[in-house]
């Protein structure tokens, strides 16, 4: 089974080579048979990659330590779930997951792309083939997960304990679905450049792909942030760490792409810019992969790194980014410019959004890469951390956040800013009220906090205002308004929900950062302490034996105002003997949207334990907001208008579509 997986992987590589050349040649020479090769090859390639992945996963599940990768990252006593997630909890396996998703998307294009113009489809599949071939080669030459070990050891070295966690089961697949999803947009962009023309179907195809990739990436980032929050035991949710930045840059660029694709679809404007953004977004994803894998940057959460891999990925990076940008420079001039619009209009607001988002992505990029650059040129070693990013990124985001509610209220081509402002008076009033309440009743000195909360409220109310206006609440009879509300297109709902989610996330961040209370102290069993008005008692440490670890569980009890025990919080220090590695399992109790967070430190000689405790008000909103954004993206995806118009041979369907349910 293992060797069949290995063989399937090699075979998939061979197919990816065919996929990268034959359809392209077919498209160039107008040969339909050659073009048609792309589809079946992409689907078969996906099947083989899936077989290969299953083979590795089954080796993990069966603890087949004759596979080096399994031996290094698994243990026979691990729970089944972590045996399985261990498949991608390491460099080699995660790269296999990466190409699995890549070929999956390629197969989707092949399967659902029947209504695309044949040359576009062939070119897209060919570009996907290039990416696939490069990464298959990377895996086979530098990171082969199927290398064998004879004689096989009897016990594995265990999966890195911090990765033995449910969060990890979900985080990388989501993140990769996002990263790799943008590869489809990239392929569409490069295919358009190869063809020298942008079909009308282009924008319609790119937008759903961007949306889907963006939804996954949002989920991946939110999940990663939550994982770091509870698993690292520092109570922080975002560290501006290079690895985090690596996923955040494509997100920023992808968000920009999402918005410019709307303009392109609706107004045929910003074509060239959208194309460039599609290329840049995927390039940033590749750059992220490079940064994480090569070890050129110090990060708190990175896989084991290997410089030779770094060089290989750097080559892939240069080839794809350099190649696509060169192609862009050559061909962009020949593309026709699109519609025109006034600065104050829906398009104008989206351009502004793009300007800020890409600039923000650029500052994050500079902050991430500047230490490398400086060290290479002067030898000085610096670290660029949260203070830098908070200043630059924050400064760039404030105007964007302020402008968001205006965007959806402006008309296409020519908008009326004053009318929009007038309609937003209620939201503005609500935001002002939030600011005043915060300053007057909570903290007189917290002006910035109050403004942050004000902006968050502004975003939430702005999104609701948009929905209310579009369904005509207040202007038309309630019954009509409700039926209009129900009939609103998915993309309108999606926009409002996503913007609302952003507001929630902002509210969570501002509240958790500004109003958190922290306690560091040593506690003996029976001691009580108080954090943010809540009394917590420490009941002592109790040993516990896990399947592949031992732990000391600290039992904490939240005592109610009546002196009775209300809630139990277990925080523990684990020890994984196979790797001789300790980990901290923070104890977290969610109350409403807020959390009590207890982290254990060292045990002292007299039996006392160092305890760090936080009360984090509204902290869960950070990730719930992310979830809401995902929902927004998904709702937008269901909008029937995102489906691509089919050519004449399926003429029955579009005619149906033209008759809306509401009429």
């Amino acid at each position: 089974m293992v060797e069949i997986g290995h063989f399937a992987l090699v075979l998939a590589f061979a197919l990816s080579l065919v996929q990268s050349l034959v359809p392209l040649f077919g498209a160039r020479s107008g040969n339909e048979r050659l073009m048609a090769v792309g589809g079946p090859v992409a689907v078969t390639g996906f099947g083989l990659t899936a077989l290969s992945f299953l083979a590795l996963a089954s080796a993990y599940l069966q603890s087949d330590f004759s596979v080096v990768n399994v031996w290094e990252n698994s243990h026979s006593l691990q729970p089944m779930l972590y045996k399985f997630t261990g498949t991608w909890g390491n460099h080699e396996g995660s790269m296999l997951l990466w190409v699995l998703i890549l070929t999956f998307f390629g197969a989707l294009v092949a399967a659902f792309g029947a209504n695309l113009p044949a040359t576009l489809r062939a070119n897209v599949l060919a570009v996907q083939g290039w990416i696939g071939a490069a990464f298959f080669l990377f895996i086979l030459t530098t990171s082969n997960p199927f290398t064998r070990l004879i004689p096989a050891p009897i016990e594995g070295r265990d999966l890195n304990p911090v990765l033995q966690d449910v969060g990890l089961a979900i985080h990388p697949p989501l993140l990769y679905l996002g990263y790799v999803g943008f590869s489809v947009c990239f392929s569409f962009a490069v295919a358009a450049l190869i063809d020298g023309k942008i079909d009308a179907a282009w924008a319609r195809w790119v937008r759903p792909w961007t949306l889907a990739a963006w939804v996954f990436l949002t989920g991946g980032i939110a999940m990663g942030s939550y994982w770091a929050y509870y698993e690292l035991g520092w109570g922080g949710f975002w560290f501006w760490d290079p690895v985090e930045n690596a996923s955040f840059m494509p997100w920023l660029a992808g968000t920009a792409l999402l918005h410019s694709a709307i303009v392109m679809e609706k107004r045929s404007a910003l074509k060239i810019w959208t194309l460039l953004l599609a290329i840049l977004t995927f390039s940033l994803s590749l750059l992220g992969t490079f940064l994480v894998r090569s070890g050129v940057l110090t990060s708190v959460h990175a896989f084991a790194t290997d410089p030779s891999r770094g060089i290989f990925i750097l080559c892939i990076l240069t080839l794809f980014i350099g190649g696509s940008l060169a192609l862009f420079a050559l061909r962009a001039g020949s593309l026709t410019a699109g519609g025109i619009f006034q600065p104050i209009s829906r398009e104008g607001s989206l351009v502004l959004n793009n300007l800020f988002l890409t600039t923000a992505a650029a500052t994050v990029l500079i902050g991430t890469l500047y230490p490398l650059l400086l060290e290479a040129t002067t030898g000085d070693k610096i670290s660029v951390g949260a203070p830098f990013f908070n200043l630059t990124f924050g400064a760039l985001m404030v105007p964007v956040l302020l402008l968001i509610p205006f965007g959806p209220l402006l008309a296409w081509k020519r908008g009326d800013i004053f009318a929009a402002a007038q309609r937003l008076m209620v939201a503005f009033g609500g935001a002002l009220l939030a600011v005043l309440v915060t300053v007057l009743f909570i903290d007189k000195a917290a002006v910035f906090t109050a403004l942050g909360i004000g902006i968050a409220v502004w975003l939430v109310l702005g999104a609701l205002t948009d929905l209310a206006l579009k369904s005509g609440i207040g202007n038309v009879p309630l019954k009509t308004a409700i039926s209009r509300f129900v009939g609103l297109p998915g993309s309108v709902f999606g926009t409002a929900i996503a913007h609302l989610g952003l507001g929630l996330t902002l509210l969570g961040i501002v509240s958790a950062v500004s109003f958190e209370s922290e306690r560091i102290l040593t506690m003996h069993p029976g001691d009580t302490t108080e954090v943010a008005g809540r009394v917590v008692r420490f009941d002592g440490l109790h040993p516990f034996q896990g399947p592949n670890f031992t732990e000391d569980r600290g039992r904490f009890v939240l005592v109610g105002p009546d002196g009775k025990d209300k809630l139990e919080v277990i925080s523990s220090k684990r020890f994984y003997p196979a790797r001789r590695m300790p980990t901290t399992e923070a104890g977290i109790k969610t109350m409403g949207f807020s959390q009590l967070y207890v982290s254990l430190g060292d045990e002292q000689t007299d039996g006392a334990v160092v305890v760090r405790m936080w009360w984090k008000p509204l902290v869960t909103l950070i990730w719930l907001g992310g979830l809401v954004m995902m929902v927004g993206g998904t709702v937008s995806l269901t909008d029937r208008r995102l489906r691509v118009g089919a050519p004449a041979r399926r003429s029955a369907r579009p005619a149906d579509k033209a008759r809306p349910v509401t009429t």
Partner: protein
Amino acid sequence: MTRKRKRLSIIGVGAAFLIAATALTFYALGQKASYFFMPADLQTATLQPGQRIRLGGLVEKGSIVRGQGTQVSFGVTDHEKSVKVTYNGILPDLFREDQGVITEGSFGPDGVFIADSVLAKHDENYMPKEVAEGLKAKGVWQEN
């Protein structure tokens, strides 16, 4: 305004914005970036009082002293020079003697480094890259 002038003014505004963003970025890089030092580097470096830096090295053997409550002090060494560091809080799981650490903070008036964050990565082989290179350059550490 003619269309051409309008377009020019838009480009002007955009350019001004980009220049402002670039200026802000580089201002922030100058102000907010912290330099990395090994203990021996500190002899030649000139630091402003209270300047934030990152100090990296190995945790000196036998130097970890747990003080009142949650106060901890330890030595960070590169086998040439050693710097006393104090920290208030929970040390990372993999904080051990003779292991690489990176601490961030500033020097107090008494020459003791007051750290507000201590990093040790969660990989048993972890040696922070800066520390590894510094130690290799001094010939006191080799990768096995």
